[in-house]
C-alpha cells in the first residue's frame, strides 16, 4: 500500500429548495429581519462605469419561467479588475465596488433584474484578453447543484469572437446562448438574457 493522500471530500450539494429566499433574501419571503441586506444593486453613486440593467428569465424544459429561482452574479469593475486579492492584474481597484449581487425572480413573471455597470475586458494570468463578461450562478428548487454560466454583451462582437472561453464552445450556434442583447429603454441601457435549462436552445453551463 502506498502512503495515503488523505484529502477530505467536498461536501455534497443539495437543492436550495423553494424557500431559499428566507435565508438569502428574507424580504422576498415576506419579512424583515437583518439590519443589513444583500441585494441586486451592485452600484453606489461613486461606482465608475456605464450603468446597465441586466434583465432576464430562466426557463424550464417546457419553456415556463422559473418563479422561485435565485441568481448571483460576480463581475469585474469597469477597469476589468475583480475586487479580490487573487486578481493581480493592472486595472484600478475600487474598494467600494464589491462586484457581487443576488436576486430572486419575481413570483409572478419570473423576471430577474440587476442594477450594475458593464465590466471591462479582463486580462487573465496567461496574459490573454477576455471579452467583458459577468459570471452567473443559479440555484432553485429542482436544481441539485448550482449551475455556472456567463453573460457576454451583444455590442462586443469583436471581443466576443476572440474570447478564449466562448471559443471553447464547439458549436458556434451555442455561443449565442451566453450573449445578452443590448437595448435602450427610457434612457437606460438594458441587457436582456434568457437562460434555457433544457431544449434545443439549452444555455451553455460550465464545470468551473
Amino acid at each position: 500500500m502506498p502512503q495515503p493522500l488523505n484529502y477530505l471530500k467536498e461536501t455534497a450539494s443539495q437543492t436550495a429548495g423553494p424557500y431559499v429566499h428566507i435565508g438569502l433574501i428574507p424580504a422576498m419571503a415576506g419579512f424583515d429581519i437583518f439590519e443589513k441586506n444583500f441585494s441586486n444593486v451592485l452600484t453606489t453613486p461613486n461606482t465608475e462605469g456605464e450603468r446597465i440593467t441586466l434583465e432576464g428569465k430562466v426557463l424550464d424544459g417546457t419553456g415556463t419561467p422559473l418563479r422561485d429561482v435565485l441568481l448571483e452574479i460576480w463581475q469585474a469593475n469597469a477597469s476589468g479588475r475583480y475586487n479580490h486579492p487573487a486578481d493581480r492584474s493592472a486595472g484600478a481597484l475600487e474598494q467600494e465596488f464589491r462586484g457581487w449581487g443576488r436576486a430572486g425572480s419575481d413570483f409572478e413573471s419570473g423576471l430577474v433584474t440587476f442594477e450594475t455597470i458593464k465590466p471591462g475586458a479582463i486580462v487573465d494570468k496567461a496574459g490573454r484578453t477576455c471579452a467583458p463578461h459577468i459570471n452567473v450562478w443559479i440555484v432553485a428548487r429542482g436544481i441539485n447543484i448550482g449551475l455556472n454560466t456567463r453573460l457576454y454583451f451583444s455590442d462586443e462582437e469583436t471581443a466576443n469572437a476572440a474570447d478564449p472561453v466562448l471559443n471553447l464552445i464547439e458549436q458556434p450556434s451555442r455561443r449565442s446562448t451566453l450573449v445578452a442583447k443590448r437595448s435602450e429603454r427610457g434612457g437606460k441601457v438594458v441587457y436582456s438574457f434568457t437562460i434555457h435549462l433544457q431544449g434545443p436552445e439549452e444555455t451553455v453551463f460550465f464545470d468551473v
Partner: protein
Amino acid sequence: MNAQAPALRDPRLNRPEPLTPPLGDGGFFQRDRSIHPPAHAPGYKSSVLRSPRQSLLSLEGSVSEITGPVFGHNDLGPLDNDLIRNYAKDGDPVGERIIVHGRVLDETGRGVPNTLVEFWQANAGGRYRHKKDTYLAPVDPNFGGCGRALTDDTGYYYFRTVKPGPYPWRNYVNSWRPAHIHFSVFGSGFAQRLITQMYFEGDPLIPVCPILTTIPDQDALDRLVAPLDLNASAPFDSLAYRFDIVLRGQRSTYFENRTAGN
C-alpha cells in the same frame, strides 16, 4: 448509518495531515461529481424539467472563477447568528434549543477563514416563515428562521437556534422531509460556492427522503448528517450538533513556465 465524522486525521497514519503547499492561486481541484447529486434525478420530480441535458463545459480556473466576493463583519448585525433572539417579539421561539457549530475546511483540511455562512430552516413545527409555505403547522411569532455568520481565522463558525421539524411536501403523496437546516457557503473563489443541507443524527426520515437520496454515494450522504455533540452542549440550556463543511481545495503554482532568459 454513520453520522458525520469529525475532520480529524487518523492517528495511525505516519503523516497526520495532507501535504499542504503554500496557499494556491491556481484553479480549484476538479470537482468530483460522483459524490454530488446528478442534475437529473427522477425520484426528485422537480429536477426533471430543471436539469441541463448537455455536458457541462469544463473550464480550467481563470481569474473569473478563482476570485469571489469578500465579506466582513460590517456586513453582519450582532444577532445574525442567534436565531433564538434575532426575530423574538415577546419571548423565545418554541422548540428544542440547539447550538450548531463546526468548521468550514477545504479539501486539504485547511480552515477557510472569514467566509460567509448563511443558514435557514423551518420552525419546530416544520413551518417556514415564507409567503409560499401553506403547511397547516403554525408560524411561530418569535422565530424568523434565518441567520448568518463569518468564520473565524481557523474556519470555525457557530450559531444558536431551535431544532427544525419535519414536514410534508409534494413529491410522492406521502413524502416528508427529514429535519434539516439549509446552508449557503462562499469560500474564497466563486467556483467554491456551495448550497447544501444539514441533517440530524438518528432521524428515521433520512433514508426515505427523495432529495437526500439523490446523492449517489452513501459516504457523501452520511457526511451531511450532523452528530450530537454533547461536549459542546450547554448544560440545562442547549444541546449541540457538529457540522463541518468541506469546500474544494485549490492548486498551487510551483513553477512558472517561462522561456529561459526571460
